[in-house]
């Protein structure tokens, strides 16, 4: 299956964006993002803490809907999902 991962702002600068992945069945959201973030230590550290959990200010969305970071470890992605990961917003 195919899942797209989008990073924004500083996370995008560190990790790129519109990353197409082909995770195995049952892959949970947190692990999917963690795998991608591994490729750049600074990017990984920006998003995850020492325990490998999402930092509390990180925002995660699945198909445009917010996923609480506490739930990201038990939410399995499915084919066609779009996952977005970004820092606090600063528009306006």
């Amino acid at each position, binding site marked *: 299956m195919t899942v797209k991962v989008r990073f*924004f702002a500083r996370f995008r600068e560190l990790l790129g964006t519109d990353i197409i992945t082909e995770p195995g069945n049952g892959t949970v959201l947190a692990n999917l993002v963690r795998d991608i973030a591994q490729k750049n230590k600074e990017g990984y550290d920006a998003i995850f803490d020492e325990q490998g959990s999402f930092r509390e200010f990180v*925002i995660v969305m699945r198909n445009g*809907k*917010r996923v609480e970071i506490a739930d990201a470890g038990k939410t399995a992605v499915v084919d066609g999902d779009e996952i977005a990961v970004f*820092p*606090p*917003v*600063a*528009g*306006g």
Partner: protein
Amino acid sequence: MIAIQHEDVDIGNLISAAKSAGTGAVVVFDGVVRDDNIREMELEAYEEVALRELEKIAGDATRLHNLLHVDIIHRIGRLSVSENILIIVVSAGHRPDAYAGSRYIIEEIKKGVPIWKKELTKDGGRWVPGEHAHGAGKNS
């Protein structure tokens, strides 16, 4: 008109178009790139989600503050000092609603619309921290 776009808009035209029947007050908010020793500002949005959030905010503001018309144009891309970043035009029968509706919209945008700003200075760049550390998608 609710939009996220690179282009600027003509605020005078928006005001004229906002005067629907019953309008007694139009309030415009224009957020501009402030000269904080920066050269330019770079704006980025999660466009589909940001647009949906802006539409929701416009609808909520209309309902909560009896607005007759709402425009929200948030620009993205690279903007120079004093250029328009965000233009909000609202009309209402009476001024308290127009002011309150305008203010509601900007505060909600600051809280929860996935848009980011980077200040480009002579020494590099700096992502502007949000005013609400847990912002974005509160209602999504």
